[in-house]
Structures are given as structure tokens and as C-alpha cells.
């Protein structure tokens, strides 16, 4: 309530003004960058990227290595007459730091939509109350590494992928598995290898099962912030060192500086409806642990935006699976009624996964009642208490 809206309002106007001047300049640079994309031979770039990687210091940015051409565009094939698209999502009630009782709730949502002669939909969710040591700690025996924050996020990803995989188990039709969000779990990159491999275990297991079943998996990222490919262009342009920009006197400096603010989705705006870019590999460190599930990505014009689709190499290198993924994803977006479009399978999966604030409160009450039934009370921290009561 004490938010000073009047002050912020003024500042918002200033923000709008500066954005207005920024945009036209930006557009010019995007055009130049796209021209660059068309010019660069892919293997030459790969060589440069490889050599840079071996040098010190390393490239401070994430770069994308083209697996095909830089500016190639592939039309979406027609989706098969009978196809099933399964979407998965997850949400959670994080552990309450202000409570003496430690638990968290996980809710995964799955939506399996079948198209063709027998259209069908199976929507479901699965919830878990996680309170045991094995849920609360990565290393339960030592009660070490509590699962909270990004680690909890990772657990959610793993659970949702597992649910997604289970939902495709008895598939008889051509099936595509879609996730909301990246397949590259880069949040893990600051953790120790032990933690990383532990957390990734279940995730990668699910991917294996999908691979066995020849079910292509895609991570759908809408309005992606990524500028891997833009960064690669910078590397291409760079005459000296990628981290010595103050000393750069290249004529391409302006473009290079501009590229720092250009997102890949702007770069690939040349894609027409349904077209995807060629595949690119990511330089994210965490991918080292992915093995055969190393994740590549492509950009796709879904008819309203350029989305980033991440997919493991075993899909990227298999034309049939890649084509199925591409066709199904675009088809999903064409069935979407929103703008920009969003795959219905993911939308419904999200709806199944979401936990409302009312439900959150309900869980709290149920826990308190359950505890009270046993004669125990749940203690809360002082701050939490004051937040709840908000007395005057």
C-alpha cells in the first residue's frame, strides 16, 4: 500500500521515452546482423569457436555452434494424421522457512492431447507432500544439501519430465513430448559435480526412456532471452579478445556492441510462419554431464513469435524425429487461440500443475489440523507472525 505510484508513474514515462529512441537504432543493427548470418560459413565459425574455447581466458558468453547452416530455414512438414502431443509442467509450494515443520508440496501436470480420427484428451495432475529426509535433503543420511531454491526447481523439472515420460508409456500413435522451459538445467552449473550428477540422474533417466521409445522431446521456451547465436556472431566479428572490448578499434565495433543487446529471437525474425532455423549446439557447461542427451536447440516461428525449442541430440540428428517435433510443435501453436500462440498441451499441463493461493492456504490449514490432532502445534517465526497478523 505505501507504494508511491505517483513517483513510479513518472519514472515509467521516462522509461518509455528512452525505449522509443532505442528501438529504431536497434532495428538497423538487427538487419546488419541478419546479413552477417547469411554471410558466415558455418564450419568457419565452428573452427573459430573451437579455437577460442581452448584459449584463456574463456569466452565469457554462451555461444551457439551451428550444426547446420547459420541462416537456413526449414518449412514445417505436415503433422501426421494421427498424433499425440503430451505436455508437462510442474509447480510447488516451497518449504516454509518461517515454520518449524519442514515440508514442501510438488504438483506435476500432464496433458495428453490426441488428434486425428479419434480426438481425445487426458488431463491429469499428481501431487506429493514431501516431508521425509530423502525429499528434504539431497543426501538424507547426512541431512546435507537441503532441497530448496534452485535445487527444488531442479527436482520439479525432474518430476515433471518423469510424469511426462510416464504419460507416454502406452503410446500407440506417433507421440511428441513437450516441456515448458529449457532442457538445459543451467541453474545447476554452480553446484558441485556431485550435486549436479545427483540432481540430473532422474532427469536423464527419463530422457533415456523417451529415447528408447523414439518419442521426440522438446523444451519450449517462449519469449526467450537467449542470445547464444548473437554471441557467436560477436566472436566471429572479434579481431582480438572477446573480453577486451574497451581496447577494440574494429570498424565492426558498433555492430558488435549492438549485438550484445540483440536477442536471438530478433535475429531469427526472418523465419516465416512455421519455419525453423537450423540446429545449434549450446556451450552451457552443465551439458557435459548430459552425455548422449546433450541438448541442441533451434528457433521456430510459431506464428506470432520466435520460440526457442531445445531438444536432445538424438532428436536433432534424427530427421524423422526432428521433423515430427517440428511439425507437432508448429501444429500445436496453430491450434492455439492466444496471441502469441502457445501450445495447448503446455497450457493445459500448466493449468493442471498450478497451485492457487487458496490451495496453498488450505494445505497450511490441513497441516496444522493434522498436527493439532496429534497434540502438536506448528510454530512460526516472529517475522512470519507479524506478516500474517499485520497489526497496527
Amino acid at each position, binding site marked *: 500500500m505505501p507504494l508511491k505510484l505517483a513517483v513510479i508513474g513518472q519514472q515509467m514515462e521516462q522509461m518509455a521515452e528512452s525505449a522509443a529512441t532505442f528501438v529504431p537504432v536497434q532495428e538497423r543493427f538487427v538487419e546488419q546482423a541478419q546479413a552477417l548470418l547469411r554471410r558466415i560459413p558455418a564450419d568457419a565459425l565452428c573452427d573459430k569457436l573451437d579455437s577460442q574455447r581452448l584459449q584463456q581466458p574463456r569466452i565469457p558468453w554462451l555461444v551457439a555452434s551451428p550444426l547446420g547452416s547459420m541462416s537456413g530455414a526449414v518449412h514445417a512438414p505436415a503433422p501426421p494424421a494421427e498424433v499425440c502431443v503430451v505436455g508437462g509442467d510442474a509447480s510447488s509450494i516451497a518449504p516454509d522457512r518461517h515454520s518449524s515443520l519442514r515440508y514442501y508440496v510438488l504438483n506435476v501436470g500432464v*496433458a495428453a492431447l490426441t*488428434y486425428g480420427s479419434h480426438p*481425445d484428451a*487426458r488431463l491429469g495432475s499428481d501431487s506429493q507432500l514431501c516431508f521425509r529426509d530423502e525429499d528434504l535433503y539431497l543426501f538424507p543420511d547426512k541431512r546435507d544439501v537441503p532441497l530448496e531454491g534452485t535445487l527444488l526447481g531442479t527436482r520439479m523439472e525432474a518430476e515433471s519430465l518423469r510424469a511426462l515420460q510416464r504419460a507416454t508409456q502406452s503410446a500407440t500413435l506417433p507421440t511428441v513430448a513437450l516441456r515448458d522451459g529449457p532442457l538445459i538445467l543451467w541453474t545447476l552449473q554452480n553446484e558441485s559435480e556431485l550435486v549436479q550428477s545427483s540432481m540430473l540422474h532422474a532427469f536423464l533417466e527419463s530422457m533415456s526412456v523417451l529415447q528408447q521409445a523414439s518419442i521426440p522431446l522438446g523444451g519450449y521456451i517462449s519469449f526467450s532471452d537467449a542470445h547464444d547465436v548473437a554471441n557467436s556472431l560477436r566472436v566471429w566479428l572479434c579481431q582480438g579478445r572477446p573480453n577486451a572490448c574497451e581496447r577494440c578499434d574494429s570498424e565492426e565495433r558498433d555492430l558488435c556492441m549492438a549485438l550484445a543487446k540483440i536477442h536471438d529471437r530478433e535475429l531469427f525474425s526472418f523465419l516465416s510462419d512455421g519455419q525453423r532455423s537450423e540446429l545449434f549446439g549450446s556451450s552451457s557447461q552443465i551439458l557435459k554431464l548430459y552425455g548422449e542427451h546433450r541438448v541442441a536447440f533451434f528457433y521456430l516461428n510459431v506464428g506470432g513469435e520466435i520460440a526457442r525449442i531445445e531438444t536432445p541430440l538424438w532428436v536433432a540428428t534424427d530427421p524423422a524425429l526432428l521433423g515430427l517435433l517440428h511439425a507437432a510443435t508448429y501444429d500445436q501453436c496453430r*491450434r492455439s487461440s492466444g496471441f502469441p500462440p502457445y501450445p495447448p498441451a503446455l497450457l*493445459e499441463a500448466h*493449468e493442471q500443475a498450478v497451485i492457487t493461493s487458496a490451495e496453498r492456504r488450505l494445505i497450511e490449514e490441513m497441516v496444522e489440523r493434522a498436527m493439532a490432532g496429534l497434540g502438536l502445534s506448528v510454530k512460526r517465526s516472529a517475522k512470519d507472525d507479524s506478516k500474517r497478523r499485520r497489526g497496527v
Partner: protein
Amino acid sequence: MMIGEIIETMSTGFVAESFELNQPPALGSFVVVHAPSAGPSVELYAVVTNGRTVGVDPSRRPIRQSTAAVFDQAIYEHQPQLKHTLRTEFSAALVGWATEGRIRQHLPSRPPPLHFSVHTASEEQVQHFTHSLQYLRLLLQTVAEVSPLQVVAANVREVFERRDQDRDWLCQAAREIAILLKSDHEALLNVLQAIDPGEADPANSALARQSSAIAPDPSRRGSRP
């Protein structure tokens, strides 16, 4: 035939969810609920006063799904999840009950229990129940989204068809309504014009054909999540 399940219940009536999407029972038609009873079986009779289709999640509002190529029924094949994210509800006003062949046309002592099934009334049940016209009085006093005048008119048309175009009954019902609405001429004319059978039968058989076209397919029952 079972057509829905009660999801809200109160002394004056109930709201039920249809088993078939977009196929609530006809406005004004009779539905029956078998009430629990220690003694002989009791059937509660209600008249359908409203039908609507909304998102299952009240926070999700239906949005436009059609395109140039895909519209009307095709949308449901195009978006198979709609069967699960939408639901069709109908409201019904209680107008009486029957037990051991005896019919009473006033509110039952207790509303039907939540989650009990709702059935369309059979020919025999309709014939038997509408023998007395007292229930029209109750129906006219219903408070609902749809004007009770329209509900009564719909009910009379429905019963007229179910009774095999029984003109005698129609005239009796019309007169009963005229007496109930005697001090509101406008309202009365509204209803009479809506139930006027007209001169010949063609219009009536058209109405009958329409009713049967949207009757629910008993073999299909949507899968429930």
C-alpha cells in the same frame, strides 16, 4: 436416462453438471432425481430453468477458438482438451415430488443430495405429473437468470410435445397461466404468444425434429479426468 450430476443443491432447486458437453437438457423440460428415502421410493421433479457452458476453472474464461477453416463442431475435434476444460451446467427448479404413484406439487421437505444423478423424465412420468397444473404456480415464482415467463412457456411447449400434442391439455395450461398472470397482461401475452401452437402442424413437427436432433447420444459419455 441419466444426464447429469448435482453440483449445487438448495431447497428451491439445484445445479447439475451435464455428462455431455454442450448438451444440457432442454429448457423447460422435466428432470427427475431419485431422493434417498427410508420408505418407498421418492422422485423429485424439477423443471430445467437454465443451461450454460463455462470453463471448469472459474478463473479461465473461454476464448475464441474458431478460424476460417475450423469452426463449430470441428473445434471440439481440433482441441480435444476442451472436453475437459469446459463443462456444461444446468439449473432446475423443484416443482414437486412423487411417491407410490401419488404426486404432490409443492417444494419437497429436503433438497436432493449433492452428487446425486439427474435423469430426464420419462413419457409416463411427464404425463402423470402434468395431469395437475398446480406446479405452474410454483414455476412462475422461480427466481432465476432466465425469466420465469420464458421458462413456463418452454415447459408448456415441451410438455405439449411429450404429450403427443395434446391440445386439450395445452388449452387448460394456457387458461391456468391466464389466471395466474391475470393482473399482468403484458407478461401473459408474452407467454401465450410463446406457446401458441398456431394453425397447422408443420411448425410443430419442425420443433419436434429439432428437439430430437440435439438429444444426447446415450452411447457417448465423456471420459472424466
